[in-house]
């Protein structure tokens, strides 16, 4: 499979008479965006706002972040099962990406809690999305809507707008073209065959109750572990449906830009033979955990891989899935490296994971999510800051009268991203 990613760089974002990309500036016409979403009767209204890097702006509560992308050549379209049809698969041909821009969805999804993005100040250091030019969609649902339906409506609206923005740049010549190509697994050259075979075990959050992920539109709770081509991921085959503890949930944006896949591609043909990705889930029953960890490692053995990177999504309960995947792989003679975040307490003195195993001897830490961070008041809040107290990582009194916030890092979107998206980490002292 061969995919060309045509990157159109966005350096700024402005309101305009029409939605377009010109000289690296993304112009947004509010009415065009609104009318795109007005057909969805699950919303009372949708407001559109803009947030630029460095501005004194806070976005809260954040649900998802999506990079604008669309297909310009090849089967189907991005976000298959939501935007693109599922006739055919994605991952081949040409895809356009507006790099440096993002769609941020934000709304009062009552009863559960999402993240915070600060565009400047100390909080901005922790979230990757303080560096993107953000088109923020603020949703107000129709009063009688059931919250799962509302979540679904928000999810699809974000994808729609992201796709729409990318299509407006189809005539713009890209600033950079990246090529991603992997040969068929059984037909690789002798040179590649000499290198150690590496796969990526990609764990998807699937604990239910709005801790969900979708693959080609299918709820990941309902899948058996399966193979996916890395290029499909770049085309939005995996979509976030997560809400809670924003620090270590994979936004759709980080799936689209999966840094583990990028890093494995970089070393492919040099030090490793990158075989592909195995997606698995993190269901809550022991039976599913046993079945899916065994099945995942069986797939790795069928592929004959020597090593795997395993990434977790979330913490606590999924720590068990992480350790089961690791242990079973190591016992099968497959070397593992894990990426996880930590919950070592606010003082860093507690044990970091809910499960442990001597086989897990190679771990990349993406930081402790418990320490408190003080976020100063901002000039402008997009969304609804009164929800800060009930955000996971927030606590009673988190929101001060002056608009400043004291929360655990876990409330900040992407702060301890477990795909290893940032340089954040922890060490023992």
């Amino acid at each position, binding site marked *: 499979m061969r995919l060309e990613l045509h990157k159109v760089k966005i350096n700024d974002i402005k309101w305009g008479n029409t939605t377009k990309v010109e000289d690296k500036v993304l112009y947004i016409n509010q009415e065009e965006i609104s009318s795109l979403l007005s057909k969805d009767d699950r919303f009372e209204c949708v407001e559109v706002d803009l947030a630029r890097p460095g501005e004194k702006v806070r976005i809260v509560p954040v649900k998802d972040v999506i990079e604008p992308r669309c297909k310009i050549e090849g089967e189907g379209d991005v976000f298959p099962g939501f935007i693109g049809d599922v006739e055919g698969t994605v991952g081949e041909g040409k895809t356009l990406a507006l790099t440096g821009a993002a769609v941020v969805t934000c709304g009062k999804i009552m009863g559960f809690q999402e993240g915070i993005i600060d565009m400047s100040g100390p909080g901005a250091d922790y979230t990757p999305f303080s560096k993107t030019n953000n088109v923020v969609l603020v949703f107000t649902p129709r009063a009688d809507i059931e919250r799962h339906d509302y979540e679904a409506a928000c999810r699809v609206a974000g994808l729609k707008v992201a796709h729409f923005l990318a299509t407006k740049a189809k005539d713009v010549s890209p600033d950079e073209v990246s090529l991603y190509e992997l040969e068929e697994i059984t037909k690789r050259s002798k040179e590649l065959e000499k290198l150690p075979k590496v796969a990526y075990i990609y764990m998807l959050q699937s604990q239910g109750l709005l801790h969900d992920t979708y693959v080609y539109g299918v709820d990941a709770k309902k899948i058996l572990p399966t193979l996916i081509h890395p290029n499909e991921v770049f085309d939005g085959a995996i979509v976030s449906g997560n809400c809670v503890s924003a620090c270590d949930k994979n936004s759709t944006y980080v799936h689209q830009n999966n840094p583990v896949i990028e*890093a494995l591609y970089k070393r492919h043909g040099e030090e490793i033979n990158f075989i592909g990705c195995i997606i698995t889930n993190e269901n809550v029953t022991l039976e599913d955990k046993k079945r899916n960890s065994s099945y995942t490692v069986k797939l790795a053995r069928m592929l004959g891989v020597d090593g795997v*990177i395993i990434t977790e999504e979330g913490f606590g309960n999924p720590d068990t899935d992480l350790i089961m995947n690791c242990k079973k792989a190591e016992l099968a003679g497959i070397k593992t490296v894990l990426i996880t975040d930590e919950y*070592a307490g606010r003082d860093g003195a507690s044990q970091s994971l809910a499960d442990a195993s001597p086989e897990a001897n190679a*771990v990349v830490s993406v930081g402790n999510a418990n320490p408190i961070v003080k976020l100063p008041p901002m000039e402008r809040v997009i969304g609804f800051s009164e929800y800060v107290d009930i955000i996971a990582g927030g606590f009673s009194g988190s929101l001060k009268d002056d608009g400043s916030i004291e929360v655990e890092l876990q409330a900040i979107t992407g702060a301890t991203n477990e795909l290893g998206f940032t*340089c954040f*980490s922890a*060490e*023992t*002292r």
Partner: protein
Amino acid sequence: MTYRVVHYINQFFAGIGGEERADYPPELREGVVGPGQALQAALGEEAVVVATLVCGDDYFAEHAEEAVDKIIGLLESYRPDALVAGPAFNAGRYGMACGALCDAVSKKLCIPVVTAMYPENPAVEIYRKDLYIVETSDSARGMRDAIPKMARLILKQLNGEPLGRPEEEGYIERGIRVNIFRDRIGAERAVDMLIKKLKGEDFATEYPMPSFDRVPPAPAIQNIREAKIALVTSGGIVPKGNPDRIEASSATKYGEYSIAGLENLTPETHETVHGGYDPTYANDDPDRVLPLDVARELEKEGAFGSLHDKYYATVGNGTPVAYAKKFGEEIAKKLKEADVDGVILTST
């Protein structure tokens, strides 16, 4: 300004004497004593050792709380900005005194403290999380190496400078996870680590897994009707009066007590010294925690061969794993020597 530092040492380093003078009560002397000279030299002009506290190791061990209160009382008149204790090297009681004192002073007077020990000193396991303990060799030969590191750590704390990694600063790793930004993103570090692991090269995990010391259960007793069974508890049941003075929490010892000829434990003969649960019901009937009464009944019925005539007890309340492991190993050894086949282990 010049910081005022008080230095704590034991009777040996004060030149008072060895074991025979270990009961020496706390005393405060003006200026430096013994290793304090080297400490003053290392502190330079930034700080002055205004006084030296001397206390015998046994005195401190036997009067722990009282000794701490007394010492803190003595200290306050000197208005110290910081406390330096030791180095204690591998001396167990001296280490415990340095640890306990530093811990109390840092909490009660809210001033910086530093001590120094050999990593296997038992006090390290107890105090490493709360204190900066400079790593030393196992004997006083390491004095020259330890003192400058202690001086640097206390000055850094006094000046409000952030402390670096354990290996840079010379302190024993505290086991505290601290957030940092590394040079490269996590995904790239993971792929690097995997390539090294695949090549069989050295790699450093960023989160060493806590090691759980899982003990596989012994095989089932083949002939229970002939087996000798012992009672062991971490529920703190001791003969009335607590003859071994086992601590109510963070126990440093266990006791071995005879139950020969005893049919039953009563409030007159036994009590619990455990500080982690409501002792009312255990003190009403100590059999509730150490089930001697039913063990005797079963012995008479022939459910097992015989009951061992000694029992072992300690307090499992915030007990450091290092101590618990040591107690377990010693008790198991004694039980083996007495040909005990099985143990009924009760907690609280």
